């Protein structure tokens, strides 16, 4: 394994007999940002808390900077692990001002040096003029940045962040995210971030580990996950999907109302579901190619438009995403084709 960074190895965890994390192994290298992504209750926060030492380890190992900090029954307390943590609710100390909050975890050195270090962090987060104010006078975004500065001040090798943006409104998120990413990049800490927001994970992570039911079900770069999801759950996580039912015909051919595809992996005769992202449905000229479909609804959402389509002679409706300029009129007939790059075929599990 690499020196530095953090490694979780074979972590299992149960609350009162109910398993919440099962055999989880995950590694974050120095300077890397990994997102643990999953719906609420999937065990991602528990995993983070185990890494931090806020939750006692039951099974597995936690290794920070090449040294084992926890195995069952033998754990370093959180304060001995060299980790920094940013909490969902920030957990700033309300009785201390911003500068004191940031200075808090810096060890040793004289007071002036601590102050200088804290002020430097605040300046890099554009908060230096807030140093003497109290947390409750700050906006959410400012509080969030103070929380980050406070966690980074002791120079931890590992940063753990629990839904750091969930308390902020959308516009603020983008700004804070940029600040955060650049500072984290400078510091070179290994960062593990928990989120339930796929969009956020896509924007921030070098790698994403998708969790469900206490297990990591796929791990990879954001692009990997988007283009090659391991199953329907993951595909659905990143965008809405058109779901089409079909069977594999001889030669691996799959015929759908929106066009035909090929598969090599799935045996002939297997019932499958074809999942097409809205942008995978291509609209051609009126009847030019592909299957004819009628435009039921077309709505511009600014940079792009959403089109609802009814396929001729079929029950199903499709939703597709097109550039705003290419938005057809309601009632038009268009030709459909599927982009195989963004269409996924999985064997049907239910029914």
């Amino acid at each position, binding site marked *: 394994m690499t020196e530095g960074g953090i490694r979780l190895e074979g972590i299992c965890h149960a609350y009162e007999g109910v398993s919440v994390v099962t055999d989880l192994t995950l590694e974050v290298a120095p300077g890397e940002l990994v997102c643990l992504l999953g719906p609420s209750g999937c065990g991602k926060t528990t995993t983070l808390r185990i890494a931090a030492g806020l939750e006692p380890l039951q099974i597995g190992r936690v290794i920070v900077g090449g040294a084992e900090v926890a195995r069952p029954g033998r754990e370093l*307390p959180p*304060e*001995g692990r060299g980790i920094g943590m940013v*909490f969902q609710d920030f*957990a700033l100390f309300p009785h201390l001002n911003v500068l004191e909050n940031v200075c808090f*975890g810096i*060890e040793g050195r004289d007071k002036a040096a601590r102050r200088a270090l804290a002020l430097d962090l605040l300046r890099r987060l554009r908060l230096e003029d807030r140093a003497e104010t109290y947390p409750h006078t700050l906006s959410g975004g400012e509080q969030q940045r103070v929380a980050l500065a406070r966690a980074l001040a002791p120079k931890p090798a590992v940063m753990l962040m629990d839904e750091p943006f969930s308390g902020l409104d959308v516009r603020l998120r983008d700004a804070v995210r940029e600040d955060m990413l650049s500072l984290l990049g400078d510091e070179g800490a290994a960062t593990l971030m928990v989120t339930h927001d796929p969009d956020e994970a896509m924007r921030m992570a070098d790698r994403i580990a998708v969790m469900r039911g206490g297990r990591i079900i796929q791990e990879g770069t954001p692009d990997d996950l988007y283009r090659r999801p391991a199953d329907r759950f993951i595909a659905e996580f990143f965008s809405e999907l058109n779901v089409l039912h079909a069977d594999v015909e001889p030669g691996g051919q799959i015929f759908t109302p929106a066009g035909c595809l090929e598969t090599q992996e799935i045996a002939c005769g297997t019932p499958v579901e074809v999942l097409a992202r809205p942008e995978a449905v291509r609209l051609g000229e009126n009847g030019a190619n592909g299957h004819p479909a009628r435009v039921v609804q077309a709505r511009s959402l600014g940079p792009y438009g959403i089109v609802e389509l009814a396929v001729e002679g079929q029950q199903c409706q499709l939703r597709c995403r097109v550039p705003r300029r290419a938005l057809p009129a309601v009632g038009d007939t268009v030709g459909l084709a599927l982009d195989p790059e963004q269409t996924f075929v999985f064997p049907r599990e239910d029914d």
Partner: protein
Amino acid sequence: MTARMRFGWLDVVVIGCVVALLAYVAYRVHGHLVYHWNWAEPLQFFFRRDEADGGWVPNLLIEGVIITLRVSLWGAVLGMAIGLLAGLGRISQVALFRMISRGYVELVRNVAPVPFLFIMFFFVGNQILKPLGLEGVQDAVSPATGGVLELMFGELNLLRNFAAATLALALYEGAYIAEIVRAGVLSIERGQWEAGDSLGLSRLHQLRHVILPQAVQRITPPLANQSIQLIKDSSLVSLLSIQEMTFMGQEIAHSTSRFFETWIIVAAMYFVVCFGLSRIYARLERRINKSRR
């Protein structure tokens, strides 16, 4: 309609009833009780003429107030210290501390104060303070130091009694303060502990720098309340021969036989002290709140 409350007919009726009741009581007292009020006699116990030079000096009632304040002050200081320790003990991670604190709090809460005070008074006085040799203090210190000590603790030849009674009272109040402290610490969100954890602080450090400062702010109102309670409870130490307000009241009532007047005066004095204190606390609280948010 203005936003301001106005008197309606119901208010007039209620106030009328109260006035009528008071008038009836006054009438009964005046006409049937045939009690001849004599306020002059007990009132002279506020100040008296000094026999030597004829100037005014404090008499029993004023001396009583001073001793009440002394007992209350030291009782509050000691009680807070005991309460803080016991309150933190209640939530300690060490089972032994939890057991001791729990035992102490439950003992005080479930025993009537008078027997508790007697037991503590005799136990503390004889077993703990006697070996300390407080009797000798008077002779051991210089007159100047003696004067300061006297101002702080009252007559030095009674020091052991005073200390034992104050400590007994402090032990009684400490249990209630412990519960307030415990509630205050528990009211701080778990995230604050965890934030301290993740910043590399030991538990003691977190308690000292993160948790207690916030807890103290939250429990200031109940603590202020408890300190007023303590002044009233200090009347119990009259049973331990501490010559505070209630003790003096008893003396005066018996020697003058003006029970009504004396006790009304003593009650009024408690009211003035406690109400005055509560006004001061309310002021302080407003100031703190204003500066905080």
